[in-house]
C-alpha cells in the first residue's frame, strides 16, 4: 500500500514546520479531557474507526495484548456509574479524615494512603469525593464507553501497550471532532466486585486496566493551554545539560 508521499523538499518541509505545528501535533496539543457530553449517540462507524486506530498501535513483540469492550447501553452505563459511586463514597469516607468527627481515622488513613498509594493519591481526591456524592458522573454522561482489558500474559509490559493503544484511539477520536476522557476509577468495578466480571464475561487472562469515555462535547473544550515544563537531561558533546 502507498504511504503518504513526501512531495516537498526537505528545505521546504523545515520552513513549513517552523511556521506552525503539524495537524497531528495540533490534535495532540489541543486534546483536552472532555467532561461534559451531549446525549446524542456517536455514529457506529466512527467508533469502529477509533477501534481501528487502537488495533494498529505498536506493542511489544507485536503481541497486541488488549481486549476492547464497547458499552453503548445507557442503562448499563448508569448501573456501572452507580456502583462506582458507592465504592467512591466508601473510599472517601474511610480516607477523608479531614471531615469533622473523623479524626480517629487518621492513623488508619495514613497507612492506607501508603499501601494503596496510587488509588488513594490525594490529587484527584476531590473528584473521588464528588463521584461518591453523585455530583460528578463517572463517564460524565458520555454515550459510548470503551473498556480496555489487558492480557496478563503479554510480552514485556502489557499495561503499557494498552496505554499506547488507548492514546491512539483518543487522538483518533479528537481528530474527528469527538471528545474523550480517560477514566480509571472504573477499576473499582472489576477489582472489588465480582458482578461486573460476570456481566462482561471477563476471565483469565484478561484484567481491567482503564476505560475511555467517547462522545460529542458540549461547547468547544479542545484547545491549547499552559502546562508545567519538566526537566529533561540532555547529553551531547560529552556534556550534560538540563533543559525545560
Amino acid at each position, binding site marked *: 500500500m502507498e504511504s503518504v508521499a513526501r512531495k516537498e523538499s526537505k528545505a521546504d518541509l523545515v520552513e513549513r514546520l*517552523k511556521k*506552525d*505545528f503539524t495537524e497531528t501535533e495540533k490534535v495532540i*496539543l*489541543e486534546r*483536552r*479531557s*472532555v*467532561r*461534559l457530553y451531549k446525549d446524542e449517540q456517536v455514529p457506529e462507524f466512527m467508533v469502529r474507526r477509533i477501534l481501528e486506530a487502537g488495533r494498529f498501535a505498536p506493542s511489544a513483540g507485536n503481541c497486541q495484548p488488549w481486549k476492547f469492550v464497547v458499552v453503548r447501553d445507557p442503562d448499563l452505563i448508569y448501573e456501572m456509574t452507580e456502583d462506582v459511586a458507592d465504592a467512591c463514597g466508601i473510599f472517601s469516607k474511610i480516607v*477523608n*479524615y*479531614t471531615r469533622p468527627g473523623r479524626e480517629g481515622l487518621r492513623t488508619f488513613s*495514613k497507612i492506607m*494512603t*501508603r499501601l494503596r*498509594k496510587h488509588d488513594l*493519591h*490525594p*490529587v*484527584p*481526591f*476531590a*473528584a473521588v469525593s*464528588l463521584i461518591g456524592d453523585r*455530583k*460528578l458522573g463517572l463517564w460524565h454522561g458520555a454515550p459510548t464507553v470503551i473498556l480496555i482489558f489487558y492480557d496478563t500474559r503479554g510480552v514485556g509490559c502489557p499495561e503499557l501497550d494498552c496505554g499506547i493503544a488507548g492514546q491512539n484511539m483518543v487522538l483518533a477520536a479528537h481528530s474527528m471532532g469527538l471528545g474523550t476522557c480517560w477514566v480509571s476509577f472504573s477499576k473499582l468495578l472489576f477489582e472489588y466486585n465480582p458482578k461486573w466480571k460476570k456481566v462482561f464475561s471477563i476471565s483469565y487472562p484478561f484484567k481491567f486496566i482503564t476505560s475511555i469515555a467517547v462522545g460529542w462535547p*458540549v*461547547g*468547544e*473544550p*479542545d*484547545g*491549547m*493551554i*499552559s*502546562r*508545567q*515544563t*519538566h*526537566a529533561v537531561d540532555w547529553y551531547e558533546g560529552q556534556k550534560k545539560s538540563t533543559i*525545560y
Partner: protein
Amino acid sequence: MGYMTLLERFRIPTYNDPNETILGRVDFDLARCTGCGMCVKICPASALELVDKKATMKEPPDDQCMFCGDCQAVCPVDAVIMKRPYRWTSFYKVIEHGEPKPPRLFTD
C-alpha cells in the same frame, strides 16, 4: 532539585494542611468574563463557581484545582489565566517541574 530526603519519603502529606498541599490556581480576567459558566460546568474538581455572574475559584477547602486547564481551553473569551500548578510536598513531592508554559515551536 529532583531530590527527596529520607524524611520526605517516609512522611505522608496531610490533605488539609495548606503547607503540604499547594493546590493549582487559576485567575480570571473579570473584564472579559461573560459569566457563561462553561468553566464551572466542566471543572472536574468542582473548584469554580459563579459569583455575581463572574467565574471565580471557591474558598478553601473546596478549591481542589488539579491544573488540568480544561477551563482555559473551554473559555470562549480567553478569560482564564493559569496561575499556579499544584505542588505537593513530603511523599508526593512534585520534583523536576519547571514553570508552566503553552506549547512551544522552538524556532526563534
